[in-house]
Structure formats: C-alpha cells, structure tokens
C-alpha cells in the first residue's frame, strides 16, 4: 500500500489514536526515504534548516531522546535539549510556564516526554509550535509504535493480517497503547498477554484478544513484542517475585519452540535480561531489537519532516 495522503491533518503528533491509516502509511513511506539518508556517508539533508526543535524531557530517557536528537540533526534543525533536572522545574515552575517561556524563544517544534498522561496535549492546546509526544505516562508513545510498525513492515512486508502478541506489563505501558491503536488501524490482529494484575480494565474493548498464558500468546504469532517489567513493581501486589515472573512470562528459547517459523521478537527497551526476556532470545536470530533502534531515527525524521519541513516547504 502506498500513501493516499501527502500531509498530516494536525500540527501535532499527540498519539496514534488520532491518526488515520493513510497518515500512518504516509509516515512509514516517508521514513523509508529517510532510512536511506542514514546509510549515506554524509547523513544530512537540509529539510529543517533554520528551524528550532526543543527536546523537552521531563522524565529520564536515553533511546528516545538520543534518537530524536539524531533525527533532528540529520534534518539540519537547530536542537536544544531541556531536561527537568537542573532546570527551573526544580524550583517549582509549572510545565505550562516552562513551555510558555520556551515558546517565547520561538521554537518550531517541541518534542516532549513527560510522566503525566495528557501533558503533550496540554501544550498543544496552548502553544503554536508543533508538539510531538515522545511518551506521556502510560498513555501514548506514538513514535515507538511507528518505528515498531516500520520494522515489522520491513521484515515481514506488511502489517495487514499479521498476528502480533504483546507480552508483559500491559497496564503501565504507553508502548502497548500506541501499538494497539496502530496495529488495529492497519488491520493486524493483536493479542495482549500478562498476569491479570498487570492487565488494565476493559482493554478488550480496544479490539484485542487477552490471554494469561505465554504459550497461548506465542502460538501462531508473527510478531512477539516483549514489554519491560518495571523492577520496582516486584512485591507491590503486581506479581510476587521476578523469579516467578521469569518462569511464567519470561521469553526463553525453550518457550519459543512453540512459535511459528520466521517469528520476530521485538522489545522497545530498556530490557531487563533474565526478567522478561532471556539473553539468548534478545541476542538470538529472532531478535530485531537493534533494528528497531536504527529505524527509530528514520521514523522520527519522517515525523519531524512531515510536521515541520513539509509545511515550511509549502
């Protein structure tokens, strides 16, 4: 399928929920072109020259922040990284005041990571800059879902009709929500798996199958996506111990024997080796985990370009 549309509806990317299948396809197609840029000896295009992008990271992040920054630099944007620690946020400034002050310095785009759901929307409603959600609490992480889709499409050639199983802490994962929106919009079948204590209420209403067995989730899946278990949840009524979790839901080569030929294993990172995933799987032939990271740059370039560059070029 090639893109049926040439621009995004909104000035912002707040989530996958608001995107149409055509817009998703447009972003993925655009990312293919940008992936090629990253493979050149001179990895730079002038698409966002003269534009200022602020990376407003109110919560710790390695992968996403670095990936956005590389994407911005490869598009020739001026970039500025802003983190909560060491800033006036520590003096009690509110997010809105911080953002309005940054806005007074005329950025074209703000990439925001925040632990509070809805924080990107709060900025999008108030600021003229394009807001890109780089993860808001357990709500959405749209560029992660887009890079996951890009990786699946690159490996398996399509999204339509595939069976994708997402396994782990479904309740607290923004990655799973964005992925469910994206995959169901693109007509892939989604199964979520994990203990009932890590399963949010009424998630089946999002159009997914819910199972509580790793084997059931693995069987017949084209894609297995493992989610990070937050270690601090151990013993806090979510599950009894990491040991038991690994024995019940940890993905090992033995458990993968049930899987379909050609299955790919994904993980949004950061991984807990020996908790949700065995090293033999993470580093094994099934794994596309580092490809996800590579593709993240291309997908974020596409998003930045479509929200900033494409408009500027008009």
């Amino acid at each position: 399928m090639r893109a049926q549309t040439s621009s995004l509806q909104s000035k912002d990317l707040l989530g996958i929920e608001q995107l149409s299948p055509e817009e998703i396809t447009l972003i993925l197609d655009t990312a293919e072109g940008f992936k090629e840029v990253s493979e050149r000896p001179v990895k730079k295009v002038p698409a966002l020259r003269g534009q200022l992008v602020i990376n407003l990271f109110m919560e710790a992040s390695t992968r996403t922040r670095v990936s956005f920054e590389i994407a911005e630099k490869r598009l020739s944007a001026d970039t500025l990284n802003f983190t909560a620690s060491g800033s006036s946020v520590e003096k009690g400034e509110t997010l809105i005041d911080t953002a309005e002050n940054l806005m007074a310095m005329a950025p074209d785009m703000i990439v925001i990571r925040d632990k509070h759901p809805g924080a990107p929307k709060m900025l999008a409603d108030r600021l003229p800059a394009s807001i890109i959600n780089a993860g808001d609490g357990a709500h959405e992480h749209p560029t992660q879902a887009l890079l996951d889709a890009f990786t699946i499409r690159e490996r398996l050639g399509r999204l339509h009709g595939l069976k994708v199983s997402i396994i782990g802490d479904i309740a607290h994962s923004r990655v799973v929500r964005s992925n469910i929106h994206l995959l169901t919009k693109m007509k892939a079948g989604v199964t979520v798996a994990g203990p009932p204590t890590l399963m949010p209420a009424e998630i089946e209403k999002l159009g997914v199958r819910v199972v509580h067995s790793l084997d059931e989730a693995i069987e017949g899946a084209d894609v297995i996506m493992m989610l990070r278990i937050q270690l601090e949840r151990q013993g806090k009524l979510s599950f009894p111990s990491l040991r038991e979790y690994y024995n019940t839901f940890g993905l090992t080569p033995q458990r993968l024997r049930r899987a379909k030929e050609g299955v790919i294993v994904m993980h949004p990172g950061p991984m807990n080796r020996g908790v949700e995933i065995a090293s033999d799987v993470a580093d094994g032939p099934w794994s596309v985990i580092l490809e996800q990271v590579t593709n993240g740059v291309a997908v974020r370039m596409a998003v930045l370009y479509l929200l900033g560059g494409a408009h500027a070029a008009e």
Partner: protein
Amino acid sequence: MNLLITNARIVDPSQRLDAKSDLLIENGVIAEVGKRLRGKGETIDAGGLVIVPGLIDLHTHLREPGQEHKETIATGTRAAVAGGYTAVCAMANTIPPNDERAVTEMIIAESARNGACRVYPIGAVSKGLKGEELAELADLRAAGCVAFSDDGKPVANAQLMRRALEYSAMLRIPVVAHEEDLNLSDGGVMHEGFYSTLLGMSGIPAASEETMVARDVLLARMTGSHVHVAHLSTAGAVAAVRGAREGGVQVTCEVTPHHIALTDEAVRSFSTNLKMNPPLRSEEHRKAVVAAIAEGTIDAIATDHAPHHFDEKNIEFDLAPFGVIGLETAFSICHDRLVRRRVIDLSRLIDLMSCSPARIFNLPGGTLRPGSPADIALLDLNARFQVTNTFQSKASNSPFIGETLQGRVVATIVGGMVQYDLRARAPLPAGKPRKRKR
C-alpha cells in the same frame, strides 16, 4: 419587612402543593400561601415564575478558615444564593479542620457577618481528620454542628466508624460517610474502566466505594445509627443502600449533579475540571444512579461544591486536586437532565434539593408552610442559557462551562431578604447582609 409575591406557580413538596398562588412574607417569615392575598408592604408580580422552598446543600466546601484563596464564607454563600440555595452545610476539611468548638464558632460567626445564606457547619468525625480518635462530638454538636464527617477522607478504621456512629446516635445527628477504600483507590485519578485504560491513567475502581458502603450500612445496622452516604456514584453502592434500607437500616444518601450529568468519557479532554472524587463513572454507573433517583433510592442531590484556585487546576491532570464547583449550576443541570428529560417531575426535584435535605440533617427550611423562615427561590423553567466561566464563587473549576441548559434560578430570598437577583432591573428590592440569630 413585608413582601407579597403574586401570580406565581408555587411548588412545595412538603405540602404536596403545586398551584398558581400568591405568597406573603412578613418579618422574614412566610405568613400565608393562597389566592388573592393582600399585603401591606411591597408587591411583586412574579409573572408566572415558580416559587420553591430555598434549596439546601448538604455538601459544600467553603474553604474558610485556611484556604481563602479558593473560597471564603462570603463568596461561597454568594455562589449558593446564585444557585437558589438558602442554606449550605459546610464540610469540616478546612485548615484547621472543624474538629473543635472554636472553629465551629468561627464559621458560624463569620457566616452571620458575611454570609449571604444560612451556613450549618459539619464537624469532623476524628481529630485532625486523621481517622485515629474521635473529635469532641458532643461539644461540636453543642456549638452548632449538624452532622459529622471526615469528608475528603474515608474513615478507614471500622472500629472508629462504629464508635462515631454510636456516639452520634446519642447526639441524634448523622455521620456523613466519604466512602472510599484508599488501598483500592491506590492513587487513582479517574474511574477505573475503559477510559482509564485508553488514557493510561490510574483508576479508582467502583469497588473502592462499594465495599465501604457495604461496610458502613452493616455498621449502621449494628449500632442502630444513621449513616448518610456522601456523593454516591456507583451501581453497587445504590444496591447496597437499597438492600440495607429494605432491611430497616437508617441509611440516607446523596448524589451530585456531575455524577448525574457526566461520565468518564469526558476525561478524554484531559480537562482538570473533570477531576473530582469520587470520579466521573462509566455510563453504566451513571444510568444506575439516575434510575435510583427515579425509583426513590436516592434521598438528596448535593453539590460537593469544591472550589480550587485557577493555578491549582492549571496543571497536569494527575497532579491537579480533586474537586469541582457546583452550587451555581446544580439546579439548572438537574432541571435540564432530570425534569426536562422527564426522569422525575419538578416537585420531586425540589424534594431532593430542599425538603429531603432538611429532613436528613433535621434543619429548618425545606418548606413554605406559614410560620417557616422565608427561605425561597424563584425559578424560570423556560429560560435557556449557556454556562459561562464567570461565577459568584471565587473559583471557576466547573465541568459545565459551555453547556446550554434549560431552567434557571432568578432570585433567592433568605429570611425574607433578597440575597440574589439575576435581573439587573431588580424587580425585587435588594437585600442587605442578613442578621441572624441561632
């Protein structure tokens, strides 16, 4: 001061009255209701407006003392009269809390000085609202408290709740229960259900309320005391109250206008004016609450008016404080959603908002019988208007800004004095701050 209001439709459920009639006020007291009355003082033609007993709110946060940046007794009672309320019951979670006589006396004195309507303090159940030891309940009662509540917080300790119920039965006033199991709520910020899952927010399950209602009706049965369930919001709580009452337990309950009118779906906007506790529930729960109003399980509609400063609400949803204002929109919301849509008739609505609250807390008012204080509200049932963000309250954290509603409070008279008059041309004489003796 005397006042004759002619040509009104008088609706008074306490007398099963709904008729075209005149109403005569003499010396702050209702002197007569009937046809072709003659009065000595001023006469007003109500032009077909509806006169009802002044509304009584069982659940108001006036914030004074301690949080005057949110609301004061003066501004909160002005909001009350703008909503047709002639009396409000002030919750105890002020700073310091109303857990001792001096605070009760301060609230009563300030209300007499600057209040636009009657204010009945609710005393704390426990010292410091800490849920550990009983406050001096008899002393609070003697100072003028009309009920006891740690509202804002549940009484987690069942033994403390039992003792509070026993002791307040001796004092013949109810314990008002904020029903919530904080372990089940677990830091949640909205109703636990599909929308909390969609939005990635931590949820407060219906069972958080339902388990505590179940506990408290059992304790009310055991102690033979009167428990009043505050801001009931779930189907399971409705069932628990209904079942207990059928079993003879002395239990009453209230619901808020926002739980009648709104559901958790609205939280998709991430507006902090949709954040309150108990949270907006799912459509299934909302329907159960409305059905319980129609069938008579719900005794009262109370606002849980909870003003917050703009700055406090102008932050991320999960950081914002719980609470919305409600006094100025309560009648219009309930008229629009319940009477206009034919769930109940006007008489039943006035019973829920005035007569029944008076009975539950054993307060004066809630009636237009001759000899009662002249606490009345004038209503225009045909007026359609849009709620704007200008309020008499100091706060503007209303979930209803922008809503178009039918049915509006036109004027409010407290003790014979006009305390609110919507119309600039002032068809009624302007009131002065009311002097009141308790």
